[in-house]
């Protein structure tokens, strides 16, 4: 939190309402800012405009029927949401997933991470007033969406992960196309991103030393994902509580020390690079075989379990309680962006109103996940 300097001038504070209908609140988020001139004095976030009661609704569905609900949490990256959920159910059932399915899961969830960070880059540029970035980011996302559409039949709500595997096998042509996209991202798109935005003098002046989140504050709030790594804490669920087959891949966890908006930005771009490398390794190692276990038990035994994955936005966890019936007794989501929003005040106080928008953009929220 920045120190608010009292300049001895009597000024009147005004309250400005950002959202729920506002060009840069990324959905239906609302925050009430108390401004002294251009400086932010108070932040009051309001959430709940997109509440659909998913957690309650899930209690009336069977385990398999809950997968489509997870699509609608973080609608930018449905794949990883699916994965987090089915992985928890598999843990509850103590189910082994075929190796090929595991590889496909890694490939699609890393592609999903690229999509998410492209969208982040695009909207972050837009928040800073560079509309061209928006177009470029969405252009590259579109290619991956085409692959996903061919694979799953849907552009955004995939429901591709199934309990005990994936819905459909991936073809060799699709794998080739994915390889082409990965090469394109590494050789053309990323240098272009850096040329257009990262190196820009105005961009650096706008983002450096803005919205600093100290590592200890970040840990206190439970911040995870790129936002935590930008503050200098090297915590990645893929490495630290390795799930699936992530221990087979060789990749780095990009971190920065400063915790400002620029670090959060650059960490994400470097993650695109790492995701591309993981996909390349997975494409070389992927074995032939089945993608779905033959029989999935409908009723898990009594008990509860929690498991989490590294979603593009942070640690996405599911907590499931089973009472032995075919429906979950309790279906609880640990959404990363809801937790990130709580740390918003720490970052915003004392900054300029224009920076408030940049900070909100830099923590990369999706309201479908915040409100559920």
């Amino acid at each position, binding site marked *: 939190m920045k120190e608010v300097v009292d300049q001895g001038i009597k000024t009147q504070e005004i309250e*400005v309402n950002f959202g729920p209908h506002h060009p*840069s609140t990324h959905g239906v988020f609302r925050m009430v800012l108390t401004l002294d001139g251009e400086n932010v004095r108070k932040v009051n976030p309001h959430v709940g405009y997109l509440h659909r009661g998913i957690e309650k609704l899930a209690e009336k569905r069977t385990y398999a029927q809950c997968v489509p609900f997870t699509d609608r949490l973080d609608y930018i990256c449905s794949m990883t949401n699916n994965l987090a959920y089915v992985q928890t159910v598999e843990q509850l059932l103590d189910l082994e997933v075929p190796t090929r399915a595991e590889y496909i899961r890694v490939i699609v969830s890393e592609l999903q991470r690229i999509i998410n960070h492209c969208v982040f880059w695009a909207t972050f540029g837009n928040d*800073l007033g560079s*509309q*061209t970035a928006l177009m470029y980011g969405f252009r590259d996302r579109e290619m991956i969406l085409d692959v996903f559409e061919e694979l799953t039949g849907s552009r955004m709500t995939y429901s591709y992960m199934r309990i005990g595997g994936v819905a459909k096998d991936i073809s060799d042509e699709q794998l080739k196309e994915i390889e082409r996209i990965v090469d394109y991202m590494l050789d053309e798109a990323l240098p272009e991103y850096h040329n257009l935005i990262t190196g*820009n003098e105005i961009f650096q002046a706008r983002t450096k030393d803005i919205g600093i989140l100290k590592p200890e504050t970040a840990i206190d709030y439970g911040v995870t994902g790129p936002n935590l790594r930008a503050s200098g804490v090297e915590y990645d669920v893929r490495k630290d509580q390795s799930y699936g087959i992530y221990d087979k891949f060789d990749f780095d966890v990009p971190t920065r020390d400063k915790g400002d908006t620029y670090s959060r930005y650059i960490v994400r771009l470097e993650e695109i690079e790492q995701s591309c490398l993981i996909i390349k390794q997975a494409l070389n190692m992927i074995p032939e075989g089945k993608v779905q276990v033959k029989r999935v038990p409908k009723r898990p035994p009594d008990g509860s379990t929690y498991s989490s994955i590294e979603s593009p936005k942070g640690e996405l966890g599911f907590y499931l309680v089973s009472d032995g019936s075919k429906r979950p007794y309790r279906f609880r989501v640990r959404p990363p962006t809801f937790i990130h929003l709580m740390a918003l005040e720490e970052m915003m106080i004392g900054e*300029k109103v224009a920076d408030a*928008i940049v900070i909100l953009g830099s923590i990369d929220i999706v309201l479908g996940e915040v409100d559920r």
Partner: protein
Amino acid sequence: MGALQNLFVNLALFFRESMVNIGFSQLGIEATMDLVAGIGVLAVIAISALVLIYVERKVAGFIQVRLGPNRVGPKGTCQTVADALKLVGKEDIIPDRVDKVPFMIAPILFFAPAVLAFAIIPFGENMIPIDMNIGIFYFIAVCSLSTIPIIMAGWSSNNKYSLLGAMRSLAQSLSYEIPLVFSILGVVMITGSLQMSDIVAAQSDMWFIVTQPIAFLIYLIAGAAETNRPPFDLPEGESELVAGYMTEYSGMRWALFFLAEYAHLFIVSAMATTLFLGGWHGPILPSYIWFLLKTGFMIFILIWVRWTFPRIRIDQLLSLGWKFLLPLSLLNILITGVVLYII
């Protein structure tokens, strides 16, 4: 070629002679000629705005790897007309608790200085609507006027975004008007005249961009800030202030703000051409074509900047104006003065 060279001048002469033949009084002829010039200026504004909006959208489309308007008319050329018609047909919404009179006249007052500034632009050889001996001074005075309607719009809208936008606009104009004026001063010192025709005539051998490169850069930056275009579009700052002082406006009133912005874009580019790029001077082609080509080039640069740069922050904008551009422009004046003294 000869006929084309002085097409508009000959037209004006023909007009004047025919009025003499009909038997108008001297005063009547002058008044009518001024009226014709005025209509000419309005036509230029209307046409340039229509063309500019289309060109900007097409160039933006090219930069952003998309198509731009391509549905209405051949290659989408009628898109601007369709948009304008839509705006004319819209309901004139005046929100409930606005201060009605300033709210209603602000767009008109914002548009008026843009029209006035066209009066002193030398479109070609002998093609200045009014060749005032204080041309530069008039240009600066008229351009500064546009701040007041913005404040009127922001204040009367009874909206916090509008008010913040208007305040930003005021701070921005204050800090950019001065470097703008000082950058032009270098040119005035060399020519020793405030008259536009003299300034253009002085550039027949060498453009002032060669002798005054720093002034040109300062003019370009300050001019972009004057037009409220990105990266200096803080008064509108979409990502935080929705639309700034224009938030509550819709329909034709909003369109007036929009049109005036394009008129300002044209003026700033035309003045850059006149002051630094040799005005209408150029070989072979008629003078007005040269003027339009150079102005078009300047406009293209401003469009290019708009679609590649992120937006600057208000305090950075002010410190750029006061701590960098202003001393630099003073230095430029000093160097110009010393060199002139030595020569």
